[in-house]
C-alpha cells in the first residue's frame, strides 16, 4: 500500500486530537498498525500545549471538541506559526463546515466515518504536498506514461493514446501522485469536483476504461487496484 518513494511511517509522528475515547483508541491502534508513531490528546487545550513542546508531521484534529473547538485550535496554532499539515475530522461533513475548516488553514477534511486506508491515503497526500508542492502541471510522467494536460496529449511507450476529457483528468491525477494510493473519494473530489459521494461506481467505470485504453501487448497494467481503498499508478 505504501509506495517505495514514501518515507517509512515509523519516522512519522502523528498527533490525534479526538474527544471520543473509543474512536481515539481505535485510531491510535490502527495508525500504529500502519507504522506511524501516534500521540493522542482529548481536548483543544492539551493539543495546543502538546504542539508547543513537540514536533509532529501531521495532526488529525476533531472538529467538535470540548473547551476549545477544533477550528479555533487550528486558527490559534496557525497564528502561532505551526505549519504542520492538519486533517480535520468531522461527523457531519456539511459544506459550510468544510469551507470554514479549509479557510482556517486545514490541509484536508475527512468525514466520519472513514476507513483507516482512506485516512492513510489522505495523510500521505498532505505530507507529499508539503514535501513537493506545486508539481509541474504541464507535463506529468510516471513509468512509460506521459500526460500533457494543457495540450490534451497522452502517450504510453511513446505511442499516442486517445482519451476523453474526464479520462485524461483521472489519468493525470493518478500519474501526478504515482506510487501513492488515491481513494475513490479523493478521486471524486479532484477529478469530478463533487463534494458528495455518488451512488454509482463512477470511478471504477472510468478506471476500467482507462486500463483498456492504456493496454498494450507485452506491457503490464500500470494501474493497481488497492482493495477497499482505491487505485494507485505504479511508479
Amino acid at each position, binding site marked *: 500500500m505504501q509506495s517505495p518513494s514514501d518515507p517509512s511511517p515509523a519516522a512519522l509522528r502523528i498527533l490525534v486530537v479526538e474527544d471520543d475515547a473509543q474512536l481515539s483508541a481505535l485510531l491510535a491502534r490502527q495508525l500504529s498498525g500502519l507504522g506511524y508513531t501516534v500521540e493522542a490528546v482529548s481536548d483543544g487545550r492539551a493539543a495546543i500545549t502538546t504542539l508547543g513542546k513537540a514536533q509532529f508531521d501531521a495532526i488529525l484534529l476533531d472538529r467538535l471538541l470540548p473547551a476549545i473547538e477544533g477550528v479555533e485550535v487550528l486558527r490559534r496554532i496557525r497564528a502561532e506559526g505551526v505549519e504542520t499539515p492538519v486533517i480535520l475530522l468531522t461527523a457531519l461533513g456539511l459544506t459550510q463546515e468544510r469551507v470554514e475548516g479549509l479557510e482556517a488553514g486545514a490541509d484536508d477534511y475527512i468525514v*466520519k466515518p472513514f476507513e483507516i486506508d482512506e485516512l492513510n491515503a489522505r495523510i500521505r497526500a498532505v505530507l507529499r504536498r508539503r514535501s513537493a508542492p506545486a508539481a509541474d502541471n504541464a507535463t506529468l510522467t510516471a513509468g512509460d506514461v506521459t500526460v500533457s494536460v494543457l495540450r490534451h496529449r497522452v502517450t504510453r511507450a511513446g505511442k499516442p493514446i486517445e482519451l476523453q476529457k474526464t479520462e485524461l483528468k483521472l489519468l493525470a491525477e493518478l500519474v501526478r501522485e504515482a506510487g501513492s494510493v488515491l481513494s475513490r473519494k479523493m478521486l471524486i473530489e479532484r477529478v469530478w469536483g463533487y463534494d458528495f459521494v455518488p451512488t454509482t461506481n463512477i470511478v471504477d467505470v472510468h478506471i476500467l476504461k482507462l486500463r483498456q485504453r492504456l493496454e498494450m501487448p507485452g506491457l503490464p497494467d500500470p494501474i493497481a487496484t488497492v482493495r*477497499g481503498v482505491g487505485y494507485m499508478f505504479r511508479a
Partner: protein
Amino acid sequence: MPRRRLRSLGRIAIAFALALSATTALAGVGVYLALLDAIDHQVDLRLQGEARELLEGGAGVPEIVRRIARESSERESADIGFLLRDSLGERIAGNIAPAHPLPIGVSTVTDDAAIPGLSRGRAWVKQLPGGETLALVAESEPIDQHDHKRGRILAIGFGAVMTLLLIGTFALIRAIRINIAAIGGTAEAIIDGDLRARVPVERPGSVFGALAVTFNRMLDRIGELMTGMRSISNDIAHDLRTPLARLHGRLAALADMPEAAPVREELADAVAESEEILAIFAAILRITEIEGGERRAGFERLDLAALAADVAEGLALLVTESGRTFVAPAPAVAVPVEGDPRLLTQLIVNLIENAVTHTPVGTTIRLDVRRDGDRALLSVADDGPGIAPAERDRALRRFGRLDASRHTRGHGLGLPLALAIARLHHGTLALEDAEPGLRVALRLALAG
C-alpha cells in the same frame, strides 16, 4: 392571494363608507322631519292658546278687534299674525294679508301665502258664530331660512365627518395592509427557508404589535421544534455514525484477516450494507443542510447549460458502460441562472444516476437544457417504464421509494435531495410523462 386580500380590504372600506353615508343621511332626514313635527305641534299649541285668549268669554267682533290690537303690540305675541274677516271675506282687523285664503283648521303656511317675513309657518283658522273667520299665523321655522341654513350646516358637518371617516378608513387600511404585508413577507421568508425571519414589532402594545409578537412567538416555537429536530438528526449522526463507523471499520479489518477467507464474501456484504446505512445518514444531513437555506449565501451567476455539459462529460461513460444510451447535446446558447454550482451539479448527477438505476438496459437517457420563456428548463428524460402519475408525489418524498424500485440500489433519497436543491433555488422539480418514460424537469428563473 395576499394581493387579492388587500384589494378586498379596499372594497370593504368603500362599502362601509357608502353604508355609513346612507345611514347618516337617513338619520338626518328623520331628525329633520321629527324636529319640524315637534315645532309644528308646539306652534299649534301656542296659536290655540292665543286664540282662546282672543275669544275668551264669548267676545263679540268689536272686542276681538280690540284684543287683536292689544295682542299685536304685546312683546309676547307680537310675532303672531292676526286676521279677522267678515262673512263676505272683507278684512275687519289684523296685521297680515295672505295671498290666498287659509283653510279652516290648522294648516301649514308657506311662501305662497306671501306673508312678509314668513317662509314657513302654521295657521289656525276658525269660523266665528257670526260668519267671520279668525286666522292666526305663526312662524314654525326655528330660525330664518332654516332649510337652506340647515342644508349648509348638514353639508359642512356631513362633509367633515365623511372626510374624517375616509381619512380614518384609509389610514386603517394602510395600517392593516402594512401589517399584513409584514406578516406575509415574514411567512414567505420562512417558507423560503429563512427560519430566523421575524415580523418587525414597532409598538408591542398595539393590536398589530400584539399580533406580531404572538406571530413571532409562534415562529420561535416552530424554530425550537425545528432546532430540536435538527439537533436530533445531528445527534443521530454523531451518536450513531461514530459507532457505525467503528463497526464498519472492524468489519473491514475482519475481512482483511487471512482467517476470514471462508466468510470473506459475507463480510464484504456486511461492509457494503454498513456503507449504505452511512450513505443514508449523509443524504439526510445533506437535505437538512440544504433545507436550512444557508447555502443561498454561496449563490453565483452561472451558465446552467455549460454546467450540465460538464456533468454530462463526467457521467457519459457511466451511462454508456451500463448498457444505456446517453444523449446530451452540446449547449447552443447560454442559460444563465443564479445558484450554487456544487448543488446544481449534485442535482444533475442525482437525476442521471436515478435514470441509470431505475431503467432497464437499452434505455436512452436524454439530458437537455434550454430557455423556456423567462425560465431555465433542465430535463433528464428516459424511455423506460416511467412512474404512474399517482405515484409521482411519493417518489419525491423522503423514503418514498416505490415498490418497483425497492430492490434496486440506492437509498431512495436522490429525488427528494434534488427537490430540496430545486426549492433552495426558488425553482420547481416536476416528474412528467416523457411518452414513454419519465422526464424529470427542473425549472429555475433565468438570471437577468
